[in-house]
């Protein structure tokens, strides 16, 4: 598989045909980042974050598009993408729960919250609910240890988690999703 992709990239024409065209917004935001660094390649991670913000995740087609746009090897860029915890190379649910499982949250009982999520949503780390609403991803210490256990969801830090609070959050975000659709 690795060889095939390499061969594909070597023939730049094929790489370009596989790439998803970047949207005008994506290009505009990446172009802004390009003004902030002396080297195109430095924008790789920011560009992937921009694509992920618009697309929800980074597909192979998006990866190729960004690599072409920044004139860098797609393998090099994928090496960066897979290095970082918050670049998703698979589709996620609409709400991603970034769940802290580091030491202070562990002492304060995050395992029981994880178990509660298992039992109520049927998902464990790296999994997405069947309805596509929630993905559970463990992350290193979220730097909110005096309010443990915590997670980051929908751009908000959710603190002092309890099973009841989880139930409320899930209901609330399901509901929001329903009205949006």
């Amino acid at each position, binding site marked *: 598989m690795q060889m095939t992709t390499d061969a594909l990239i070597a023939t730049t024409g094929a790489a370009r045909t596989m790439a998803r065209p970047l949207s005008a917004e994506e290009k505009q935001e990446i172009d802004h980042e390009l003004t*902030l660094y002396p080297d195109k390649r430095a924008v790789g*991670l920011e560009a992937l974050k921009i694509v992920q913000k618009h697309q929800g995740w980074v597909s192979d087609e998006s990866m190729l598009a960004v690599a072409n746009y920044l004139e860098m090897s797609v393998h090099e860029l994928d090496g960066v993408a897979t290095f970082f915890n*918050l670049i998703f190379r698979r589709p996620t649910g609409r709400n991603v729960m970034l769940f802290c*499982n580091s030491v202070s949250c562990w*002492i*304060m009982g995050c395992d029981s919250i994880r178990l509660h999520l298992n039992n109520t949503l049927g998902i464990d780390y790296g999994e997405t609910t069947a309805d596509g609403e929630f993905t559970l991803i463990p*992350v290193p*210490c979220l730097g909110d*240890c005096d309010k443990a256990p915590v997670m980051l969801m929908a751009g908000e830090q959710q603190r002092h988690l309890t099973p009841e609070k989880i139930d409320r959050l899930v209901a609330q975000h399901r509901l929001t999703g329903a009205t949006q659709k």
Partner: protein
Amino acid sequence: MITRPLTKNIDMQRAPFDCAQYQESGGYAGVTRMYRNMAPADVLELVKSSGLKGRGGAGFPTGLKWSFVPMGDDAPKTKYLVVNADEMEPGTFKDRLLLEGDPHLLLEGMMIAAYTIQANTAYIFLRGEYLKAETLLRQAIHEAHQQGLLGRDILNSGFNLEIILHTSAGRYICGEETALLNALEGKRANPRAKPPFPQVSGLWGKPTIVNNVETLCNLPGIVNYGVDWYKGLGLGNDAGTKLFGVSGRVNNPGCWELPLGTPIRELLEGHAGGMSEGYTLRGFLPGGGSTDFLLPTHLDLTLDYDVIGKAGSRLATGTMIVLDDRTCPVGMVGNLMRFFSHESCGWCTPCRDGLPWLDAILARMEEGGGRIEDMDILHEHLDYLGPGRTFCALAPGAMAPLGSALRYFREDFESHISAGACPWHK
């Protein structure tokens, strides 16, 4: 005189000061005077003599770090200042307070550091999960620009400075300064070989200083009120104040600015309100996940770099993680090994292979499958992954809680093995 220079403007019940409010409270007075009256070499001398030590974990003297940057006409014209705002040390939540509570204080500190080394571009390397800090910093940078505090010929000084916010995407190793520089250049965040040190060849091969958020936040006070005031803040041998935090089963977990040299007991029993009802103190990591356990017998030690060092641990980030009697020490160390194993960049073999091995052993022990020979394997790793054996400090940092737990809580490891179960999970 001001006694809490880092947090005097911080009130988490309201929004942080905007540029005008920050200036009304005396902010940016220091840099204004600096641009008018001080040469870069004067600021360097001031910071050197202040005794400020880096607050990111290593505690290296800040002025000394800066002094390795080549200066003068023969020095490279392009230099960089980089702020390490990638707070991800387990149990550490101090930079978040500064970033969310008083973003202009950080910007002022950055202006002082950048001027001293004559860097015209400064990057803030912010961890991607700190979304509120991202918004606040963008706003603060915008305001500082509008006030003429950033840009070209700042306050008629002839000095130019741009501050650029870079947000990362979650990887602990980026806190290692050379890994951070690789990440900022758009590469995988593997640490670099040293030498050359970043002060000489850092970001894109240019002289670069990487400083922690809290370190930089100390600078406006030093420039404003001077060395005598700064040294007078500390109660012991170390100068200044520091942010100290406590998490775990205590009555009032939190983060406070206290003088260096404050007794540990005052932090734990006073500010953090002592242990929660029904819990007894068994030990604590004094400065985040990469520090050695200390015991209740150490409570009367003071929070000084040297004092904690002599006791066999490190002050490091100053954020204490408390181990109580109802929490399994093997489980706690196992949690830390899982973290370090996950966050190893994979570059060097001892770290890449050793940490998952330790994680697996401790997990098996917790599940009741511990074997007596595991104790030797755990001990051997303290050497294999210890200082000097690995490419960077990640694995040696991971060995700190493991080694000290084996020393202080050996009977707990052994009881897991002999009972074939975790005594806390009966």
